[in-house]
């Protein structure tokens, strides 16, 4: 049974990966066009206004943002990276970070938002629904129709 089930799964996984990489390419090219447009825009700008030095710092902003976005996209971690990429035993560093001293006497106690909150939050296995669907809508109800025996069955069965 396991072998038969395993077979259709692998090409599916492959296509999934392909899709993902295509998406990546799409996004990258999107950003490239965005960058190009930005450059053109900048050229227009500089030709019309000549050198307005005061606003020079602004020119690069969207370009920088786009580059930062691109970098982030390339580094977009997959689920495995998200799970195993971060080190959980980083207590020692944390200690160092949080113990900033003021005048060698007082400690600055900063609630280190995300991380600290998580460390001391409720130990509970329940997976709360954060954005519930509107189950009164026909469309939403249809999204799970085939999970039931009353829904559509695959041809193979």
């Amino acid at each position, binding site marked *: *049974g*396991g072998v038969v*089930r*395993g077979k259709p*799964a692998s090409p*599916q*996984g492959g296509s*999934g990966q392909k*899709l993902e990489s295509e998406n990546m390419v799409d996004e990258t090219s999107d950003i490239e066009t965005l960058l190009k447009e930005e450059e053109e825009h900048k050229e227009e700008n500089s030709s019309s206004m000549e050198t307005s030095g005061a606003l020079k710092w602004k020119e690069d902003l969207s370009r920088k943002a786009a580059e930062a976005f691109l970098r982030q996209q390339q580094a977009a971690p*997959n*689920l*495995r990276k*998200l*799970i*195993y990429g*971060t080190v*959980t*035993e980083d*207590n020692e560093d*944390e200690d160092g970070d949080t113990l900033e001293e003021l005048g060698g006497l007082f400690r600055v*106690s900063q*609630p280190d938002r995300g991380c*600290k909150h*998580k*460390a*001391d*939050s*409720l*130990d*509970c*296995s*329940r*997976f709360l*629904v954060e954005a*519930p*669907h509107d*189950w009164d809508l026909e469309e939403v*109800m*249809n*999204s*799970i*129709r*085939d*999970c*039931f*025996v*009353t*829904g*559509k*069955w695959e041809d193979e069965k």
Partner: protein
Amino acid sequence: MATQAHSLSYAGCNFLRQRLVLSTLSGRPVKIRRIRARDDNPGLRDFEASFIRLLDKITNGSRIEINQTGTTLYYQPGLLYGGSVEHDCSVLRSIGYYLEALLCLAPFMKHPLKIVLRGVTNDQVDPSVDVLKATALPLLKQFGIDGESFELKILRRGMPPGGGGEVLFSCPVRKVLKPVQLTDPGKIKRIRGMAYSVRVSPQMANRIVDSARSILNKFIPDIYIYTDHMKGVNSGKSPGFGLSLVAETTNGTFLSAELASNPQGQGAAVLPEDLGRNCAKLLLEEIYRGGCVDSTNQSLVLLLMTLGQQDVSKVLLGPLSPYTIEFLRHLKSFFQVMFKIETKPCGEELKGGDKVLMTCVGIGFSNLSKTLK
């Protein structure tokens, strides 16, 4: 014996149970520091102290050190012993909080565990005894943990804040666990539920049933929701009512949802009709997430796969909960096991959201106490 050097170190009170459970199973000591260190009321709470006492009861030779403020805990696990045990759980958390850890440990005891737990059977925070009975027990059976003595019985129901509930959990021991291939959840063939009420009119449960059915009937006709109205000493110390629902598939997958009324004296009164409807919608959310294991039991299935024979195990899950993600990290630290994680987009099928296929090779964990037999 193991020394400090081998111990793992963590900070904060979150994930306390999974850390102590994995420490017990792997034999690696843990040190947990800065437990609510910045809280006005720092250190371990009563319910956590009760959990640690429970661990001490079911093991032999555990060493537990807690500093004066309760902000640092050192735990050097002993051997899992089991046997007949009784435990009064803190009413600040439900019995489910304690039971979840026992489900992880019970199959590996020296003597089969037979435990009576007293406290809160149903609350708004933890998985209730009803849900664990309906979802976690069938899951353990998939791994070969089964037998006549395998049961979870609700003797008395107790709602917060008073508690007064009592359950009996007994679990056989196994030398090894079977690997599993849970890749196709099948289709939901029926929905079962339990509407309970204690120290309020028994009519409450009937009103819950009607409203929950009105929503679920749009999907499937085979729905049966039992009503359970315990009386006298069996109804605990506080009034309340609630509903748990379980969707069962053709392949033996159980997906669950539940809701309980607000504890006496906390928050506004909840209408049983609203509770029934909202709980039904929560079950639809769980079905949308889908997979072969209910979202509350994700970490249990991953643990049993890790501890299984040296063979490949696979399980299809819905989106991973934050609790599960942390559990996967802990499995890596304690057992050096990393899962292969593949996202399965749902595509054209009307089967809810994207799923995740988790694959690992078991470490061949065997119950040391059983090897000589």
